[in-house]
């Protein structure tokens, strides 16, 4: 049996996670630290077995890690961009991707169901291949390919050549018709899970292991994340975190309440998830135990959900208006 080279990291996580679980920034900083340690151990392991990296490369994270919005538990979403293009290089970085995935799994990050991992050739490519792939996704413009694009746009450079991800994003913005990309992206994220019924009551899960709890990921977070990502595309920004994106997007894009308001709302929501989610496993962490909330807190959650939906609808109208202006 192979000696577990990641056991120290697991210990490190166990030691530090409890201090961080109630504070969003601290927690995400810790996740970054853990992922960094895993990547370093994985690289050393691959160097030991296959020699040094044959080309400059960038390991980047996507999904909630990319946006710096991880909860206590978080699954893996990552990819690799390397410079030189040949079969040996490809095989080397796929091996690295597999090693990192394995390490992250051992450190408590479940594998991504959708296969968004550097161990998958789909997400481990040379710069030239990545450029082709992005162009192909835009041209294809299917629901699936736009979904990949949106995932990629949450990509944050994590290890290695820090400019590669941004270079690709810039390439994407330069080579595509912004209006078209926005329209397609909007179409992909239109569906909002309803969180409040017409009587003003929160719509909790009625069946299953999370019965009685609120799906805060889909109901609460998604409208903010998706709306702000759309604005970020509109402004051709490179940031990935929703809070940072909010900071960089001009005021004119937001409803009257202003962007600081939405930053506060979103941050509060992240805090609620940390404080009232059931963090025994990855799945349950997305559900908020409503019965534990005070009356005021329940009211606040409802307000945050309503504001998220309102922000999303505002962005939708804004983009649709731009779209029709563009047609004229």
């Amino acid at each position: 049996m192979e000696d577990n080279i990641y056991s120290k990291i697991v210990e490190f996580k166990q030691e530090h996670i409890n201090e961080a679980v109630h504070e969003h920034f601290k927690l995400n900083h810790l996740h970054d630290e853990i992922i960094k340690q895993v990547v370093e151990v994985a690289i050393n392991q691959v160097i030991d077995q296959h020699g040094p990296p044959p080309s400059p490369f960038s390991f980047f994270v996507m999904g909630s890690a990319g946006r710096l919005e991880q909860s206590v538990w978080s699954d893996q979403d990552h990819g690799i961009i390397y410079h030189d293009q040949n079969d040996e290089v490809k095989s080397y970085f796929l091996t690295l991707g597999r090693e990192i995935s394995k390490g992250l799994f051992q450190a408590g990050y479940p594998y991504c169901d959708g296969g968004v991992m550097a161990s998958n050739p789909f997400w481990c490519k040379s710069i030239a291949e990545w450029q082709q792939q992005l162009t192909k996704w835009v041209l294809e413009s299917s629901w699936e390919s736009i979904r990949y694009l949106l995932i990629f746009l949450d990509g944050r450079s994590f290890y290695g050549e820090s400019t590669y991800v941004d270079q690709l994003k810039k390439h994407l913005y330069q080579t595509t018709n912004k209006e078209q990309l926005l329209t397609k992206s909007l179409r992909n994220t239109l569906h909002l899970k309803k969180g409040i019924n017409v009587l003003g009551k929160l719509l909790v899960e009625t069946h299953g292991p999370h019965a009685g709890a609120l799906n805060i990921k889909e109901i609460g977070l998604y409208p903010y994340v998706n709306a702000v990502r759309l604005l970020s595309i509109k402004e051709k920004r490179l940031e990935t975190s929703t809070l940072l994106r909010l900071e960089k997007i001009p005021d004119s894009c937001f409803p009257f309440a202003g962007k600081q308001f939405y930053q506060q709302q979103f941050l509060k929501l992240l805090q609620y998830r940390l404080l009232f989610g059931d963090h025994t496993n990855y799945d349950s962490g997305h559900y908020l135990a409503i019965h534990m909330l005070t009356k005021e807190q329940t009211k606040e959650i409802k307000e945050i959900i309503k504001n998220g939906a309102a922000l999303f609808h505002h962005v939708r109208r804004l983009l649709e208006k731009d779209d029709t202006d563009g047609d004229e």
Partner: protein
Amino acid sequence: MDTIFLMNSLWVMVGAVLVILMIGGFILLETGSTRMKNAGHIAGKTILTFGISSIVFWAVGYGLIFGKGNPLIGFSDFLYSGYDIDGLPLSGSVFFLFQLAFAGISLTIAFGGFAERAKLGAYLVFALLFSVIVYPPIAHWIWGGGWLAEHGKQDFAGSTVVHLTGAMAALAATILLKPRIGKFNKDGSANNIAGHNQVFTALSVLILWVGWFGFNAGSTLSVDSAFFGFVAMNTNLAAAAGTIAAMIISWIVLGKADVPMMLNGALAGLVAITASCAFVETWAAVLIGFIAGILVFYSIRFFEKVKIDDPIAALSVHGTAGVWGTLSTGFFATKELATVGKPGLFYGGGLHQLGVQALGVVTCAAFAFIVSFILLAIMKKAMNGLRVTEEEEIIGLDMSEHGSYGYPELLKAEQKINA
């Protein structure tokens, strides 16, 4: 021969055919609302138990209900041979067939509470016992000239006799059988065991809806003044209102337009109007159906909350809506239409009829529940349990009770993947 006699016979024959076709509706309802691995079993046992119920009805059921006897039970005309009955303005055998169909429907409803976990043997034995001991007394009390008929109880086509009786037996069964594996979690929350085919369920509702014209309008037992048209109209409107009401309430409370709930709303509207279809005005039929659609929504949630596993919502659709339908004439029966009993509360009858209806509901429900419970409890003891083993429940009753799947190709493919 008298033309009216012939026309009555023909009309009620059409009714009997429609009601027997409702068995087909129940096959689709019950299979559609449950899982694939039990589909062949459910479909097959429904036909089989209708067979048992038919033979028992012929041998003793009919005599216990309509035979000469006392206010509690009839006791003649066993092994009925098709002769005409004095004073009945239609063919005796047509009347018999029509009544046989009703007894079959009530039994089929009762078996809703058995779904996906009872042994085939339990079905067979209970089919016999229910058809002799549970259904006939209640049918005799209300329709066979028994004590509730004398008392003036209004139950035109059987909200109580057929639906509530069946639902109470289903309740007894579901309590004794206990929930299906996987229905409730350790912390008490319920899982949604989704039915395998909503199209079947929707088609079942349409078949039942049409069949109900036989059930309700056929219960006029005559073509006199073409009154059956009015009854059919009320029936259709109540079903329509129940459908809409269930959809609205599900959207208001759950935030989604839930298809199974909407379908249950249609059925609840039909069950509720069954007692009152001949006694109330059209607007009241709409209201009765609408209220039934709301009630069924809350009733389904209630039973789940108290951890009673009711796979096809028989308790709510036939029980709760059956109670409401029976009580509804106590409010809405009009002076002109109340050929049995008195007008309801809103038509100057005061609380009298409502009291009669309530008494009828309580006694019939209690009788059906207690007797069914005792019978099933004895069976449980004698048959070494009513339920299949855990292993059999997991592989499905198609395989455990009959040795072949209703969807063989599909389930074999699935097993290959799992292996």
